[in-house]
């Protein structure tokens, strides 16, 4: 009992995360104290500035030298990859927040029964739930924590801090309330289910290693004998929890439903930021904690990756809703990313190459995704966003610019050269081939081709079909939405032509691998 | 075994070593104490409150009506055991049991005295002590809430259901404030074990007035008065005693969650459970704040005061005094409104408590911390927190007050308007010939033939 040493916390190192959480808390205070009409005008700058500020802090850390030991008594590892993930998450959440600013996406009163007088009243009163902003900040903070945790417990906490606000955000769509609420409930029930699996897996890994610290688990792999079953059960259950979060098959079922039902800006955040954070965690668990066990998990992950790519690509073909289609595309992309996770190599250099490829992929995919969903927010009809594919027919005629940009994003998803998506895929495939996963790459290529089919289908629909007489209108973009689309398109082009600086950055971040 | 060493304060290590027969003796002893306590307590309460209200109280059964409680108990046993036809049978039966067992168990960690020689065995005068004794007590209190909710729910009657919910809401609300009020005690005692908390209150400093050295009892009631006061308020809420006896609030909810429990033995169990909560609350007040079984100052000058079985006497005296205070309150205060009750718990006690805890922590740190600690920032932070908390609270309160006043004025205006115009829809009394008031014909056993 007397052995307790007062712990230490490196506040400076954790500053970006603390800024985000601080902003979230201030956001709650704003909700509590600011009058209703002022809230949004406080929240928007607060959210954007704190995200930008956190990003600047990340940059300072990168310039000032990346820490070489884990912070907060080994609970949080702010290493090169973590800083890269932080940067990416912050950028993605910044642009997602720009989409959130448009009030039209969020319900005025979540508690009001759809179609009731209360709802109408709230609608007439105008505005939307301003709680969205602090919720997003909490989710972003959770993502940062999730991606940088060096300890399964912190990872679990990060997972929940990230997920819980998202569960709520999913249910806040202004139009199609039923759909949105349903998405929220499904996401919640399945998310809670999967985090229970994660937790049980964590319990077993703890039972095996006597610690939840990733480095100690790794050390225990070599020294502890006779508990292999416990370890393997733990490993499998942990995997289920993590794979659920990235939406890998066969745990992908929630993704389309949730992406479709959630307000589109939230979908954008989930499809980009959550994926980045989840892959950060996946990499940490599988590479840091279970790195010495790769002979055990690699065959399974091969199967998962293949299944994910194929399922994502094939089911996407049958979709009739643009958001669902993008969800399946996200599943397929998760599969491609898993190829990178599997591409471990016995030497550090090979691992660094895989890691850097994954990080680059996540960045470019995230930005393009946000851009694509930003376009989705702009195609509207009387009932809100017109997400049914048939409503997109002839969009190229009606609004060539928008359709053109969207087509460009789709081509980037498909991995056509001169888009950023191509280099993302290329980097991952290259790493995989270099580390002996060529068959996976071939599967990846085949499913890319299948995936190209449904991307192309949308382009056909937009450009080569007759527009419907009562087709959707194109909303005049708010400055923020326009900025998001422009930024996403610009990044997709620039990284598609000249990816070197970002690749360098990713390499540098990955060069030291994860600290333990 | 060496010489029996008496007057040794028991520590956690002394528990769990009793032979089974000693344990059984102790357990039965506690049980008997509580059963007798209830019988005596009910009588004492009625008698005391009668005297305060200038009447006699029970005086028929036995000398001074001492057997009144026994008579009541027997009467309940002989009453018809009703099963209303809508109830959920199993839960309806179980609810009183669920209520009463934890109420007994909550008392088990109460220390009655130091190590004694019981039939040749060296044992502490306490049924059991745990590293988490106080937590256990709280947990048992919480389990009782299940009984309340289940009783209300299984009755399938609106009054019972509402009463059960209200009661649960009240109890859990006050449980928070109550748990918080213990934190300061743990800060000082450094343990959750009741026996160790009692020992921690033994060593008082000495007050030096000139040549006279008066040993100060370091009872937490003096050191941590705010905590004690909050605890007392919460104890009333938790035990649902007047002024916070809303769960039974006869005037509002008929009988609350026990509406459907007619006056049979099940009802008796519920009553016992509630009474036991009051006992536990009193015993905890004694243990945590009033020095437990230790003799108060003048007596403690006598060396033998805290040895042997004597402390049981000190404990009982303190216990009865605290219990009397509870009754005294009942005789003095009216019942509060439900919103006032909840507002007090949530908006006053909890923030006050948290601020107080922080203050205590800061002070303690400054007092015990070594010299290396720079005290200025600690003080500044502490001051800011406290001032901030008060500022926020004060601001809230005025805002609420203003809003309530406005609402009151609005309602008054509305009433005014309606009263002047009976046809406007508000006040005409509903016609008396509504069929609802007559109901179906009945042909049953008339009342009063019992």
């Amino acid at each position: 009992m007397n052995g307790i040493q007062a712990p230490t916390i490196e506040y400076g190192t954790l500053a970006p995360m603390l800024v985000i959480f601080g902003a979230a808390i201030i956001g709650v205070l704003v909700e509590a104290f600011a009058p209703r009409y002022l809230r949004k005008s406080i929240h928007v700058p607060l959210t954007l500035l704190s995200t930008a500020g956190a990003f600047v802090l990340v940059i300072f850390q990168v310039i000032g030298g990346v820490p070489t030991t884990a912070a907060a008594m080994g609970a949080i590892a702010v290493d090169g990859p973590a800083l890269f993930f932080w940067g990416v998450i912050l950028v993605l959440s910044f642009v997602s927040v720009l989409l959130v600013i448009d009030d039209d996406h969020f319900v005025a009163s979540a508690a009001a029964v759809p179609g009731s007088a209360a709802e109408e009243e709230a609608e007439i009163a105008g505005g939307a739930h301003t709680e969205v902003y602090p919720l997003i900040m909490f989710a972003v903070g959770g993502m940062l924590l999730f991606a940088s945790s060096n300890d399964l417990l912190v990872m679990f906490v990060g997972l929940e801090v990230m997920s819980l606000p998202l569960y709520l955000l999913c249910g806040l769509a202004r139009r199609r309330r039923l759909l949105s609420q349903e998405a929220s409930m499904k996401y919640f029930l399945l998310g809670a289910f999967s985090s229970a699996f994660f937790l049980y897996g964590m319990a077993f890994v703890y039972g095996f290693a006597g610690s939840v610290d990733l480095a100690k688990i790794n050390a225990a792999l070599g020294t502890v004998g006779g508990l292999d079953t416990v370890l393997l059960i733990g490993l499998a259950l942990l995997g289920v929890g993590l794979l659920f979060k990235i939406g890998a098959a066969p745990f992908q079922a929630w993704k389309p439903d949730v992406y479709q039902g959630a307000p589109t800006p939230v979908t954008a955040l989930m499809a980009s930021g959550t994926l980045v954070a989840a892959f950060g965690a996946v990499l940490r668990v599988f590479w840091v904690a279970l790195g010495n066990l790769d002979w055990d998990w690699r065959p399974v992950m091969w199967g998962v990756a293949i299944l994910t790519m194929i399922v994502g690509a094939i089911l996407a073909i049958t979709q009739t809703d643009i958001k669902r289609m993008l969800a399946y595309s996200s599943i397929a992309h998760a599969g491609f990313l898993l190829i990178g996770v599997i591409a471990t190599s016995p030497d550090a250099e090979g691992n660094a190459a895989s890691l850097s490829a994954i990080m680059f992929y996540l960045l470019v995919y995230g930005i393009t995704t946000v851009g694509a969903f930003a376009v989705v927010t702009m195609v509207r009809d009387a009932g809100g966003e017109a997400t049914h594919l048939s409503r997109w027919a002839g969009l190229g005629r009606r609004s060539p610019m928008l359709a053109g940009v969207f087509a460009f994003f789709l081509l980037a998803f498909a991995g056509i050269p001169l888009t950023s998506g191509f280099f993302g895929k290329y980097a991952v495939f290259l790493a995989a081939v270099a580390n002996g996963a060529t068959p996976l790459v071939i599967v990846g290529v085949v499913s890319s081709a299948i995936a190209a089919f449904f991307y192309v289908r949308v382009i056909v629909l937009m450009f080569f079909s007759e527009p419907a007489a009562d087709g959707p209108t194109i909303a005049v973009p708010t400055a923020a939405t326009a900025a998001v689309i422009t930024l996403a398109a610009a990044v997709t082009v620039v990284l598609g032509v000249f990816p070197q600086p970002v690749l360098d950055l990713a390499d540098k971040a990955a060069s030291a691998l994860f600290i333990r | 075994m060496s010489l029996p060493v008496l007057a040794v304060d028991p520590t956690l290590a002394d528990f769990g070593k009793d032979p089974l027969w000693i344990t059984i003796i102790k357990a039965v002893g506690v049980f008997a104490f509580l059963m007798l306590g209830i019988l005596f307590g009910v009588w004492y309460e009625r008698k005391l409150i009668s005297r305060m209200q200038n009447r006699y109280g029970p005086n028929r059964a036995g000398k001074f009506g001492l057997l009144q409680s026994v008579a009541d108990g027997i009467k309940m046993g002989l009453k018809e055991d009703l099963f209303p036809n809508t109830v959920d049978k199993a839960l309806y039966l179980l609810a009183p049991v669920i209520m009463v067992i934890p109420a007994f168990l909550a008392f088990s960690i109460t220390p009655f005295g130091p190590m004694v020689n019981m039939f040749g065995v060296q044992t502490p005068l306490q049924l059991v002590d745990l590293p988490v004794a106080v937590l256990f007590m709280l947990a048992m209190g919480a389990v009782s809430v299940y009984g309340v909710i289940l009783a209300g729910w299984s009755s399938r009657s609106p009054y019972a259901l509402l009463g059960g919910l209200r009661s649960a809401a009240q109890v859990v609300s006050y449980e928070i404030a109550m748990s918080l009020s213990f934190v300061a005690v743990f800060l000082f005692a450094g343990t959750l074990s009741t026996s160790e908390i009692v020992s921690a209150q033994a060593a008082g400093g000495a007050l030096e007035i000139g040549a006279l050295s008066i040993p100060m009892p370091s009872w937490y009631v003096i050191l941590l008065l705010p905590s004690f006061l909050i605890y007392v308020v919460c104890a009333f809420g938790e035990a649902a005693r007047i002024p916070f006896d809303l769960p039974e609030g006869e005037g509002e909810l008929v009988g609350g969650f026990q509406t459907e429990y007619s006056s049979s033995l099940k009802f008796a169990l519920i009553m016992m459970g509630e009474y036991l909560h009051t006992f536990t609350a009193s015993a905890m007040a004694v243990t945590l704040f009033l020095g437990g079984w230790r003799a108060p100052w003048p007596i403690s000058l006598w060396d033998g005061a805290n040895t042997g079985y004597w402390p049981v006497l000190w404990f009982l005296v303190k216990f009865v005094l605290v219990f009397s205070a509870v009754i005294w309150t009942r005789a003095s205060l009216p019942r509060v409104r439900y919103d006032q009750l909840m507002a007090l718990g949530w908006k006053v006690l909890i923030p006050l408590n948290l601020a107080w805890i922080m203050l205590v922590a800061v002070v303690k740190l400054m007092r015990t911390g070594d010299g290396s600690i720079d005290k200025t920032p600690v003080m500044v932070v502490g001051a800011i927190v406290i001032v901030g908390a008060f500022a926020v609270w004060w601001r809230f309160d005025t805002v609420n007050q203003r809003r309530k006043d406005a609402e009151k004025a609005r309602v008054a205006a509305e009433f005014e308007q309606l009263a002047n115009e009976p046809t406007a829809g508000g006040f005409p009394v509903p016609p008396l010939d509504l069929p609802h008031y007559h109901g179906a014909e009945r042909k049953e056993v008339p009342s009063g033939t019992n």
Partner: protein
Amino acid sequence: MTTEYLVLSALLFAIGALGVLIRRNAIVVFMCVELMLNACNLAFVTFARMHGNLDGQIIAFFVMVVAAAEVVVGLAIIVTIFRTRRSASVDDANLLKY
């Protein structure tokens, strides 16, 4: 000695998981999830005892917090959807299909 607790925890977890899969009422499903979390807690505490360190018990605290947070969020969502649909059955929530 500790194996029995692990078996119990596994049983609880399995019951919970099965409940999630076969029960239709959202609240019951949700309670099954909570059951799973508590099975985890049991496993943690058991392993903590096995290893003689306190980590598992501390983790159990955190799990309780998370479970509580999940309860708050989850019930809010379920209640909202219940108010909308007057039903808490998972099957009735079937607008989203592939």
